[in-house]
């Protein structure tokens, strides 16, 4: 048994690499899209606000799994053929983007209105107000929930195994299919996910502390 599992380790490592790669892509893409849409939600014209609000509430109201299937099976049906890897990244990114929008709204909303007004009074343009007044203050409010959400991205990525993508979850299932050692491998897999996520959450706690010196 030990020999079989040791033999499978390089294969599992490849799966883990894919899991991390998917998570990284999702985190980066959703950060960009979420911040842009979040700014649209807070400062945009009313139709844009509504559009972002509906997007975010819809995405956050359905299971990730449904979103993944919708994107994976639905896009080819309307004539858009994405490789399954990118369909999975797209679905997970949509999901994470909705979360980032809400983190941003919460962080920006926590900055007193007087800050914006003072910035306007000294003649800063909208971009300058965001760049020099709002974002630097909102940043430390945004950081803790966002970093906590990174482990969600890693956990959520396990669902892409259902699309036949050989991430860590799928790699484990494939090794079990060959060796019939279900329990040891699931426990090993759980420990690997645990190690990755626990390390991330420890790092996030440290980072939070790093930014906690700015208290009002």
């Amino acid at each position, binding site marked *: 048994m030990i020999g079989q599992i040791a033999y499978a380790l390089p294969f599992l490592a490849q799966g883990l690499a894919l899991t991390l790669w998917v998570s990284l892509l999702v985190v980066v893409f959703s950060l960009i899209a979420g911040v842009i849409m979040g700014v649209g939600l807070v400062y945009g014209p009313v139709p844009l606000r509504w559009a972002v609000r509906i997007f975010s509430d*819809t995405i956050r*109201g*359905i*299971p*990730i*799994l*449904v979103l993944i*299937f*919708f994107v994976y*099976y*639905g896009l080819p*049906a*309307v*004539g858009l053929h994405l490789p399954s890897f990118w369909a999975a990244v797209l679905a997970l990114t949509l999901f994470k983007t909705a979360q980032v929008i809400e983190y941003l709204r919460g962080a920006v909303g926590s900055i007193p209105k007087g800050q914006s007004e003072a910035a306007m009074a000294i003649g800063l343009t909208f971009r300058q107000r965001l760049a020099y007044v709002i974002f630097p203050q909102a940043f430390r409010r945004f950081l803790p929930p966002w970093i906590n959400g990174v*482990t969600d991205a*890693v*956990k*959520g*990525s*396990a*669902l892409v*195994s*259902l699309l036949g993508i050989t991430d860590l*979850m799928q790699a*484990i*299932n494939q090794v*079990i299919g060959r060796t019939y050692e*279900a*329990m040891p*491998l*699931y*426990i090993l*897999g*759980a420990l690997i*996910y*645990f190690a990755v*996520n*626990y390390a991330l*959450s420890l790092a996030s706690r440290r980072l939070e502390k790093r930014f906690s010196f700015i208290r009002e």
Partner: protein
Amino acid sequence: MGYALNFNLIWRHFDKLWGGLLLSLELAVISIAIGIVIGLVLAVWYVSAGRVVRTIIAAYVEFIRNVPLILLVYLVFYGLPTVVDIAYSAQTSFVATLALYSGAYLVEVFRSGLEAVPRGQIDAGKAIGLTPWQRLLHVRLPTMLRITLPALSNTFISLFKDTSVASVISVPELTYGAQWINFNTFRIVEVYLVVTAMYLLTGYALLYALRLLERWFRAAH
């Protein structure tokens, strides 16, 4: 492009979705009921326990919170019966998994709720001569419940969405019904539109009902 929507086949198989939705709700309700018991017992134990018990409870919480739900579902359904002599249906196995999963999240919710009970209330309980058990039952738990009710509602709604993972072990809940229609009728866009609407409507109806319940509870106590 040029995809023409046709919902006829969805309505013909709508019983799969409707039955699935009811099962999703049932799975969520049973799981959270067990999860609440696990959470309460462990949280009360945690705040009064020594180092060893605390470490064990914390390990359970951290383990569950850092592992994907789908892996836990596989582990309990496919893994556990290979080492322990038990047999259960996919549905029972999923409920057990989701109960353990929600339990881990609820320990944290209840623990922070118990720690947020004002010291003065507990001292007042002592002053009128309540035993520790009475203080827990009549002072700490009711106050804790009022503090944690919103978090409890949110946990329930997210569990309702998590029941979709039961489809991976063929429990015929809503997402499974959607996949069935997807693979058998190929009205893919239609079925996921309908299922999205069903999850959304149910989720927001639950949210509204739970917020009413919270308000009622706050007024009554």
